[in-house]
């Protein structure tokens, strides 16, 4: 799978070292999260390589990348679960290495894997959390009512978590992350393995949080549409490095033009070479046996596409056109796709099964 990277991405954007422009909203002088030169090694494996990033207060920030890109590692370092190998990370002005408890008090986190006590009720899980964070009884009670209402779980509050569905558990975990009103909320793959309806619901909650509470939210995802719909800014991470950082709109706009999906009878290098020579073609790529072209103006390019095909005896069975999405941006930057996974990964299935026979 070759990708035409020369020229178009040569001037600054496609290079691996992306300049991070601090995003400042509501006049904040400094980012609520400041990361510089952050590196994490696991033995010989470098999970994060010299990450520089600044996130402003009140941002809904997305870390987008395939599984294993380093998103969870970054979140783990920011939430003091893992120590960094090199570099510094400041959360709300506290160093994650030396001021762990101050960082822990300031953040809330919803882990990628389930982390509820399924023998306790929903309310008890929240109460446990509130106690651990030193909240007094009165505040705990009122906050429990508040966050349960927010995620529509008030009616199930006295049921044990083991009777909850996957989506309800996820919502309860989000509610729990909000219990102590953190300044920064981390959501690690908040909709992984959920059905489309539940995903949309959770997106609404997340958006609501940002709008009504002004909370800084950092979410990781490998779902393109999730990052696109939710985030004000996105960092695309690949193999431990940030390869692009901007708003989803700008990222797509820089790709420019339209994406043409062309079904051809068989692979023809000469045909691809010819297409590449046209000035308004910005990318040629093969994806699932299909030719994917990024062109300036799709409508005017299609006639020329057919001419070229006819001249070379290539048979085109179908052409479709769409606007570029973040997936296209990712492919353009890395030459690879972010694979969409099935709704429930086999690993999770095992986990759910084991959950059922706990002790």
């Amino acid at each position, binding site marked *: 799978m070759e990708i035409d990277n020369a020229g178009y991405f040569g001037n600054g954007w496609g290079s691996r070292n992306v300049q991070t422009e601090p995003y400042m909203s509501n006049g904040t002088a400094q980012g609520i999260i400041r990361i510089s030169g952050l590196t994490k090694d696991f033995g010989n494996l470098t999970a994060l390589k010299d990450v520089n990033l600044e996130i402003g207060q009140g941002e809904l920030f997305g870390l987008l990348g395939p599984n294993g890109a380093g998103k969870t590692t970054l979140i783990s370092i920011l*939430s003091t679960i*893992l120590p960094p190998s090199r570099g510094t990370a400041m959360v709300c002005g506290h160093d994650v290495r030396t001021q762990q408890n101050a960082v822990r008090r300031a953040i809330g986190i919803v882990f990628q894997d*389930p982390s509820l*006590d399924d023998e306790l009720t929903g309310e008890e899980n929240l109460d446990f959390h509130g106690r*651990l964070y030193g*909240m*007094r009884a009165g505040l705990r009670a009122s906050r429990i009512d508040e966050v349960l209402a927010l995620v529509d779980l008030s009616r199930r509050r006295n049921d044990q978590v083991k009777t909850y569905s996957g989506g309800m558990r996820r919502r309860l975990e989000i509610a729990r992350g909000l219990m102590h009103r953190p300044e920064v909320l981390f959501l690690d793959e908040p909709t992984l393995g959920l059905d489309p309806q539940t995903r949309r619901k959770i997106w609404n909650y997340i958006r609501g949080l940002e709008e009504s509470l002004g909370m800084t939210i950092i979410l990781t995802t490998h779902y393109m549409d999730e990052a696109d719909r939710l985030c004000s800014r996105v960092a695309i991470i690949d193999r431990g490095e940030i390869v692009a950082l901007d708003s989803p709109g700008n990222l797509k706009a820089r790709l420019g033009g339209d994406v043409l999906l062309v079904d051809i009878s068989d692979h023809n290098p000469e045909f691809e070479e010819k297409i590449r020579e046209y000035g308004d073609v910005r990318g040629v790529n093969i994806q699932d046996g299909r030719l994917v072209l990024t062109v300036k103006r799709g409508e005017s390019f299609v006639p020329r596409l057919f001419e070229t095909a006819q001249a070379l005896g290539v048979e085109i069975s179908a052409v479709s056109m769409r606007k570029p999405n973040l997936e296209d941006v990712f492919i353009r930057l890395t030459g690879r796709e972010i694979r969409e996974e099935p709704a429930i990964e086999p690993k999770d299935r095992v986990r759910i099964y*084991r959950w059922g026979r706990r002790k």
Partner: protein
Amino acid sequence: MGTTEVNFFGTVHTLWLREVKRFSRNKGRLFGSMAMPALFLIVLGTGFGSVFRYRSDTSYAEFIGPGIVAMSLLFSSMFGGMNVLWDKQFGFLKEILVAPVSRVAIMAGQTMGTVTTSMAKAMVFLVALLIGGLVKSDLQGIFLALVFMFLISASFVSLGIAFASRMTDPHAFPLIMNFLIMPVFFLSGALFPLDRIPGWLEATTRINPLTYGIDGMRFALGAPYQFSPLLNLSVLLLFWIGTTLAGGLLFRKMSV
């Protein structure tokens, strides 16, 4: 932020409360965990009691009574401590470890919670023994027995936490059961007196801390005993301190 500095005892209480809530909720597990000691007491006590008499004034059931209480403590404490492994497996430990509280407090709370539930189960046996007339003791004796029971329970909970902190796979549970818990129980003099067994067997029972716990309980509950109560108490105290340090150290170093 709405939160204040969390104190040590607040955290201990929170963890303790969780254990007690889980315990009170699951009646099935409560009875399940008491089945084996009950079986030992009733079947072995009656069965062997017909052929075995330790002393003229002591029936076999009276002899093994305190040992069965200790058995219940050993099993539920060790497995209770190892429940940390399930919390690790099912992610709940992350929720605990990312909270702004000290790990020592977490470990202490986890221990106190499991000791409470283990003692509650063991006390059901103790009361049954008292009602059945298999234990002849006064209030002081019972209080002393409770001290021994606490030390046995707290030690094995800490040992369980120590193992769970190092392990990653709950499939090792049967291994621990077969190669640690069962030998510790069978080589503790719970089922037979130590003064008539061959030297090699006696030597192995003597290095087993549970032996001293059971002997101490026998003293407290008016059954025939062998060592001085002070020796029993000292050995058990040392064992408790040792396991608590080991458990605490490994728990602090654990990563999730």
